[in-house]
């Protein structure tokens, strides 16, 4: 069985830095014509500090009908890889082969022209994907129906909302029968019901035997839709395997302790000569480290650190990010005790308590830092995604879920007070009479 997508030794180097604008001046061109051999030499000697490897030695294969999720932090090289597969950019080394036509959706509204109507853009988009007008015509009604923008199909797309843009773009890419579909973060925009529709459509596409490679920060979608996931980190493939395992590795176990991280050796602990972080962990009210917390229970995040240099006002700070990378909140110690008082040398434990019925269910990641603003503004410690825990909302306890069992939207899930009282309405005119009376 041959692979539909094969990626062999792909590396991509970008030049960085302000010195080289990326394009050359005409003088260099004219001069270069005379000094060709010298220029060749200079090209080879690009100093390593001026370049960055966005991708390094990437190898993998995908079989027909496989759905693979590409995950990783921002800047890990996911989008670059998709761009190389769809031939938008060329690799520095290596080779990719894709057997079949590629439909790629790399950004919302790619190739849409704002002055053209939705109808015209469907055709334009189709032709950009390399599909003839007659093929687009055959699928036109389906595309429009799926995108739910029938009413606006003859409106210039510059009047569309970003959600409408995305719906139309996804719809075009999903309905044109390319053998391979490459998508970047298509689920990031759009309301939940449309996201669900996209996921269902992707299921359907998969069942048709088409091959899908997609980038997402939505780990739930990756685990639900893909049997396989590839984790990129700093341009390298660090994990490639069953989606659930790779996602778990990404969210948790690649940071050795999921909910507790400790640096036994002071010299290697993050920080500087002023302060070093010794330990970060979650804790329950009882004082135990925990990997999961029920939604109605508060959870503490505890930072243990050693102050090595006196005379600094130190502020511990915690940022909480959800699994899609959305920062939920950021909080630093504003308590009176240490707010305006330089910290003497010694060990300290700072704990922040996140109340119950505040976070939404799912995985959250914690960034911890130690900063000071006296005598100078400085960040001594800044550790990203250092620990993680999971909030569980199974409806067993008193929470915003109540008796509802379906999915709940929102990045937070507070239990808010509702007030409902029975009133007597004599007839339908009551309400309007009441309004009319009040405006008099």
């Amino acid at each position, binding site marked *: 069985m041959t692979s539909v997508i094969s990626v062999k030794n792909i590396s991509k180097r970008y030049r960085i830095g302000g010195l080289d604008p990326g394009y050359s001046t005409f003088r260099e061109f004219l001069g270069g014509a005379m000094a060709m051999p010298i220029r060749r030499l200079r090209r080879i000697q690009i100093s390593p500090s001026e370049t960055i490897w966005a991708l390094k030695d990437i190898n993998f294969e995908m079989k027909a009908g496989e759905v693979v999720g590409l995950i990783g932090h921002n800047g890990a090289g996911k989008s670059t890889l998709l761009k190389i597969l*769809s031939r938008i950019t060329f*690799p520095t080394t*290596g*080779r990719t082969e894709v057997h*079949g036509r590629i439909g790629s959706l790399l950004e919302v509204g790619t190739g849409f022209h704002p002055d053209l109507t939705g109808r015209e853009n469907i055709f334009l988009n189709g*032709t950009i994907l390399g599909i003839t007008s007659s093929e687009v015509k055959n699928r036109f009604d389906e595309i429009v129906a799926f995108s739910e923008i029938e009413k606006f199909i003859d409106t210039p797309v510059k009047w569309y909302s970003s959600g409408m843009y995305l719906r139309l773009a996804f719809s075009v890419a999903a309905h044109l029968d390319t053998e391979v579909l490459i998508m970047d973060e298509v689920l990031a925009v759009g309301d939940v019901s449309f996201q669900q529709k996209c996921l269902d459509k992707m299921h359907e596409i998969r069942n048709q035997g088409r091959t899908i490679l997609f980038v997402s920060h939505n780990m739930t979608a990756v685990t639900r839709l893909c049997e396989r996931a590839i984790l990129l980190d700093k341009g390298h493939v660090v994990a490639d395997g069953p989606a659930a395992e790779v996602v778990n590795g990404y969210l948790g176990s690649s940071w050795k302790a999921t909910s507790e991280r400790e640096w036994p050796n002071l010299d290697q602990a993050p920080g500087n000569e002023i302060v070093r972080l010794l330990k970060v962990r979650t804790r329950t009210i009882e004082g135990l480290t925990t990997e999961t917390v029920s939604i109605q229970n508060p959870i503490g995040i505890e930072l243990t650190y050693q102050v090595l240099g006196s005379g600094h006002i130190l502020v511990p700070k915690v940022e909480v990010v959800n699994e899609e990378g959305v920062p939920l909140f950021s909080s630093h110690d504003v308590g009176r005790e240490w707010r305006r008082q330089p910290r003497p040398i010694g060990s300290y434990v700072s704990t922040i308590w996140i109340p119950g019925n505040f976070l939404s269910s799912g995985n959250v990641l914690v960034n911890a830092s130690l900063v000071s603003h006296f005598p100078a503004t400085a960040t001594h410690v800044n550790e990203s995604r250092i620990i993680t825990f999971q909030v569980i909302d199974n409806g067993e306890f008193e929470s915003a879920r109540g008796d509802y069992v379906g999915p709940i939207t929102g990045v937070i899930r507070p239990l808010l007070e509702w007030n409902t009282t029975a009133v007597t309405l004599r007839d339908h005119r009551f309400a309007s009479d009441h309004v009319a009376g009040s405006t008099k």
Partner: protein
Amino acid sequence: MLRVSKSVVVGSVVSEPNGENSVPGKQTVIVNDADQPASVVNLRELWRYRDLLYFLISRDIKVRYKQAAIGAAWAIIQPLGMMLIFAVFFGVFMGVPTDGMPHTLFFYCGLMPWVFFSGAVSAGSVSLINSSNLITKVYFPRVIVPAAAVGALLVDLLITAAILLGLSLYYGIHWSWVLAMFPVMLLLTIMLALDLAIWLAALTVKYRDIRHALPFVLQLWMFVTPIIYPLSVIPGKWRWIIYLNPLTGIIEGIRSSLTGGDFNWTAIAFSVGLTLLTMPLAVKAFQRIEKSFADLI
């Protein structure tokens, strides 16, 4: 040594070059290989994307004239306006020789292809830069972009060419069988403009200075082209220099095709030769830079 071993490995694993390949009965294979040039002249792929070319052309035309009050009339105002100014200053006041043709017609014969040529080359040279939002987000054969920029001006060329024929009738010029050379000359103009548009589009991505240099160069070019003056004013000894300007043969050819006069076959041969020679050079230059388009734009 390294080179040899590398090519052996590549050769043994795969045979398809960059771009879209297909063997009849087999599926399309899309290849992106660091060690192989971009495939600018994959005719099969270009054919598949023909609708995109048509779309980009019609989009350009629509956008160009949508917001202009008199729309497509602008296409004829430029050559006609220049023709009148030239006729007054160079014709009436200065008495430039025109080989016996009416001044207006003589100037228009040169201005009609020139306005198209300079417009197409200018539009072509910035076409890739102006399409950066497409190029960085979606794949299609890049050569379509400068081709569409030239294509969008074809309508203008046809309108202005029709006006030239009308003008010649107005001046009572009798057409003869040599008028058959007129469309040939137009075709040559289009090919030449396409060559330079492709070449400059690629170069402009890499060397942004071209954007500033081009208007100046085109202005100079106009004066070394026999638009205001006939080829006959150039001393025979120096004529070969002006033959090196491929527009010379084209413009002189258009005049001869209308008046039924003697064709300057030397000049035309130069034009044809230079146009055919530029094509592979342009394609080669485009191909060399094509791989880095998305990173440079």
